[in-house]
């Protein structure tokens, strides 16, 4: 056994719970006992520090994940993968490719639906992607896939701020009922997408950079965060809005009936 493998096993054992149940050397992480299966898998990713292949078996069907640094780098293989699932295999997860991230989440979610038993085994990693591509943290995926985030260790709460914290996240959260789609990007990295985001993604790709550049001549840095609301800007009748707070940018589609509520919320969070 290599030094790295030994260290990985020791770290895994240290992270383990005294109440863990093992079955043929694999740890049982969900047992039809009401524990959310996707969250259980993300918890396993969150427990993985050194690069490992996590062999997840869902009622006997296998998915091999590559995880490192408490991040999911991607899906290596999956039993019976076809169609859309096949397109995810071997792809490094990146917030810049939300379709791949969403497809991976959908695949795992579909396989977990109604699962009676899920086990995970930590194995030496297989070659995957390019060294510099880190994947997405378990907590980040919990946000992107709309599952409860792994619970942070006490020390981590202060050492690493939540990826989706801050005024922008609060604004999006408190106005969720008004928003039909959102894209939240921080410093160029996708933090969260929700709803039918395809239209927003096109707007982002084709217009946002130019709009911000053109609009910047009318903005004073002392004005602080900006919210721009455009009624009827989308073909389905929804309004569009863009919020900018430093490195945080959100593009939103919203029901115009909620405009007043959104303005009030923005004022209270940014003034």
């Amino acid at each position, binding site marked *: 056994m290599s030094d790295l493998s030994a260290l990985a096993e020791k770290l895994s054992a240290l992270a383990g719970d005294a109440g863990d149940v093992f079955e043929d050397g694999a740890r049982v992480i969900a047992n039809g006992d009401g524990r959310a299966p996707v969250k259980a898998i993300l918890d396993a990713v969150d427990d993985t520090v050194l690069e490992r292949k996590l062999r997840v078996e869902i009622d006997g069907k296998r998915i091999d994940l590559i995880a490192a640094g408490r991040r999911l780098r991607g899906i290596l293989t999956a039993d019976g993968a076809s169609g859309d699932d096949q397109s995810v295999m071997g792809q490094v997860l990146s917030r810049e490719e939300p379709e791949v991230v969403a497809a991976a989440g959908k695949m795992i979610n579909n396989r977990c639906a109604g699962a009676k038993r899920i086990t995970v085994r930590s194995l030496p990693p297989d070659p995957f992607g390019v060294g510099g591509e880190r994947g997405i943290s378990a907590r980040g995926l919990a946000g992107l896939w709309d599952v409860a985030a792994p619970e942070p260790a006490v020390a981590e709460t202060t050492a690493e701020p939540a990826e989706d914290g801050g005024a922008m996240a609060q604004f999006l959260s408190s106005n969720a009922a008004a928003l039909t789609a959102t894209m939240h990007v921080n410093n160029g990295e996708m933090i969260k997408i929700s709803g039918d985001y395809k239209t927003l993604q096109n707007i982002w790709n084709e217009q946002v950079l130019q709009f911000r550049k053109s609009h910047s001549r009318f903005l004073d840095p002392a004005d602080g965060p900006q919210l721009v609301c455009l009624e*009827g800007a989308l073909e389905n009748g929804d309004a569009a809005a863009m919020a900018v707070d430093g490195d945080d940018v959100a593009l939103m589609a919203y029901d115009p009936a909620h405009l007043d509520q959104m303005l009030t919320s923005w004022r209270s969070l940014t003034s």
Partner: protein
Amino acid sequence: MVVDELDALREKFDGCDTLAFADLSTQMILVTNSGSTLRREALDNLCAEAALVLGSKGDPALGQNPTNQAIVLNKRAARIFVRSAAEPSDALCCICGPETDIAGLTAEATACLDRILANDA
């Protein structure tokens, strides 16, 4: 008179500083409320911002369609731009404090613009 309409609207809303009737096709402010202290350069900027956020010549700067109503809100001020559906080159630009009833002012500004154009016809 256009200025009377603008003054009357300004009186209705606390925190409303400037109301300006604009021609987006030439990007010129034609009339402001009588109490406005904005200098010409600031008025030109206001009109240029209106043309940008509302979109011009059928092309939206942001979104799939040009909009007839845009709001830019920050901690110091709100700028409201409304465009006439009947006369897409005519718009009303408003500057107010962030605590102003923005949704109310936007609705009243749209009605005010309609009245101005009706009286002008």
